[in-house]
């Protein structure tokens, strides 16, 4: 199974210098940004709509539709979400380090399409090197007149600021990100307004898109909507970057079309499991996603809809593979701990509930669990995410709280025996 390279093409062909402006321009770079200036907002929005591009930051929202929601007031802003902090996800880091000019060109296109003259890239604080690479690319682009005043000799001005976060996963949520960028605590905003496109940064119309989403734009202009659609699945066009990690032989970021199966991804692309091990379960789309198991999901097509119908999501594209040596109680506790740690504390069910889940899972794992603990877990989970519905019914300001429930609903559904064994043997049966 070969990768279908679009956003990872240049770095594969020119590993030593894919990040330089010289290489970028020698491989056709910035010609689409020039074209975008001739096209203007209407044609660009229409093109991206027709391309079928879905956002790659987790929610898979149609990018062109989001752009069409932009309120008419000006100034408007563009914010690129490079906060990438969902455990298991490391694709945007590779795009930033290895092909930062692709992102800069995408930013120019998105800015022109949304009549934006001031764009921001919010990079998570731990990504110092990726941020430096991007900053250098931005400076090179300024140096050649591709950013700044009268870009490409037109009368269009565009400023780009690279902004460093400071270690808070919740700032990946777009309204929290905007608060953070305004110099406030990174707490998600109450909805409505549902879209920053209406009221965003400084109360102005704002487009927030993920690094991978924006990095696709030069390719959509180059290939045209049809060419881009043809590469992917009819429902999920173009390519998708899967960050595969955990117990596989070949972890990595793989750029693939939708529509292959989990079996192909895990066993062919990622090289299968380590010697003598068998597949126990996997997380199909980042720490927030409910888990899949081989008996039910291995031959499922990987598309947004098929994954959703099976009760999970592709999310940020992080696939975390666990083999038969994995203690699922520990694994679940580790993920719940993450959400408890990252809860911003505004909503009681999330703030209190996640800590309770972490504590109860911890006590089961240590062998101090009680018979009733499974019911207690489910009860607490139900208080955070009513009915444990998928997609979750929202009782909180943002989806972080309900996300913490995913590992709990997964292990109580698929691995109840293993939880009970911990309780009955007063310890981990796998040790």
């Amino acid at each position, binding site marked *: 199974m070969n990768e279908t390279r679009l956003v990872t093409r240049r*770095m594969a062909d020119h*590993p*030593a*210098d*894919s990040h330089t402006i010289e290489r970028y321009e020698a491989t056709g770079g910035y010609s689409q940004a020039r074209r975008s200036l001739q096209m203007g907002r209407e044609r660009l929005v229409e093109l991206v709509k027709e391309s079928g591009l879905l956002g790659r930051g987790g929610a898979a929202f149609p990018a062109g539709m989001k752009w069409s929601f932009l309120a008419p007031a000006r100034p408007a802003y563009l914010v690129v979400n490079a906060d*990438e*902090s*969902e*455990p*298991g*996800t*490391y694709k945007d*880091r*590779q795009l930033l380090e*290895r092909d930062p000019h692709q992102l800069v060109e995408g930013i120019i296109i998105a800015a022109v399409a949304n009549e934006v003259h*001031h764009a921001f890239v919010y990079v*998570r*604080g*731990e990504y*110092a*090197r990726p*941020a*430096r*690479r991007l*900053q250098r690319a931005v*400076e090179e682009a300024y140096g050649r007149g591709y950013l700044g005043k009268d870009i490409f000799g037109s009368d269009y001005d565009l*400023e780009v*600021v690279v*902004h*460093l*976060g*400071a*270690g*808070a996963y919740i700032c990946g949520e777009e309204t929290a990100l905007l608060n*953070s*960028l*305004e*110099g406030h*605590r*990174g*707490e998600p905003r109450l909805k409505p307004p549902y879209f920053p496109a209406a009221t965003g940064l*400084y109360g102005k119309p704002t487009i927030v898109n993920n690094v991978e989403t924006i990095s696709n734009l030069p390719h959509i202009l180059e290939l045209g909507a049809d060419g881009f659609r043809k590469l992917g699945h009819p429902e999920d066009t173009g390519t998708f970057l899967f960050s*595969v*990690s*955990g*117990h596989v032989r070949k*972890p990595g*970021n793989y750029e693939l079309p939708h529509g292959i199966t989990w079996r192909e991804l895990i066993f062919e692309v990622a090289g299968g499991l380590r010697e003598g091990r068998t597949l126990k379960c996997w997380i199909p789309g980042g*720490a927030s996603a409910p888990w899949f198991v081989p008996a039910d999901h291995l031959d499922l097509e990987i598309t947004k809809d098929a994954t959703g119908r099976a009760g999970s999501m592709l999310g940020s594209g*992080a696939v*975390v593979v666990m083999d038969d040596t*994995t203690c699922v109680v*520990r*694994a679940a506790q*580790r*993920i719940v701990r*993450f959400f408890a*740690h*990252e809860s*911003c504390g505004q909503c009681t069910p999330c703030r209190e509930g996640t800590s309770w889940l972490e504590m109860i899972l911890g006590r089961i794992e240590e062998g101090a669990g009680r018979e009733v603990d499974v019911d207690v877990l489910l009860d607490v989970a139900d208080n955070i995410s009513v009915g444990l519905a998928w997609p979750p019914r929202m009782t909180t300001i943002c989806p972080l709280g309900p996300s913490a429930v995913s590992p709990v609903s997964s292990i109580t559904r698929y691995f109840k025996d293993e939880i009970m064994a911990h309780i009955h043997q007063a310890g981990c049966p796998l040790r």
Partner: protein
Amino acid sequence: MTAPHRWSEETLARARDLIARYPERRSALMPLLYLAMAEEGHLTEAGMETVAELLGITPAQVLSVASFYTMYKREPVGRYLISCCTSISCHLLGSDELLAAIEDEAGVPAGETDPDRLITVESVECIGACGGAPAVQVNYETVEGVDPEAGRELVRWLRKARPEVIVADELQTLFGGRTGFDWAIPDDEGAVGPYPAFGPLGTAGRES
């Protein structure tokens, strides 16, 4: 209140440059907090007061924001901050053993600094290096595929070599193993303190 003149002229110039990049002054708060850390090694009350003054907000507002984010260290930390990822992908590949080895070699539990103020160890959530698990950062420069013995060597090396600049590629060569993707492009930029090396902060090597 402490006047901004506590900061060097160079830092103040950087601060003014940062403020000018944003449509609204207050947006420069996060980068200014990093500048304050770079000035004094960690975020002090005086540093926060200076930031407040530069932005025209109150020190309480600055503290409220600073305390929200884990990378603004309001207690002194060592010259080298070792952040061990113990999130799910690293956990599956032995991060707990790695953290234990690093704690043992450094002689301090996670969350603490050694008596020489040289090394602080912390356990952190995912640092975006999951394909190269288990991963660690030193002053926010990443090293991937670190086994417990390499973790010990890393601590011993920091103590002995006391590098001026922490460079990811050097760490990776000396202590790393498998990476999540091909890094391909070596560079010599790196961190000079326990805060992210991102211009106009204290970045050494080739200025970015």
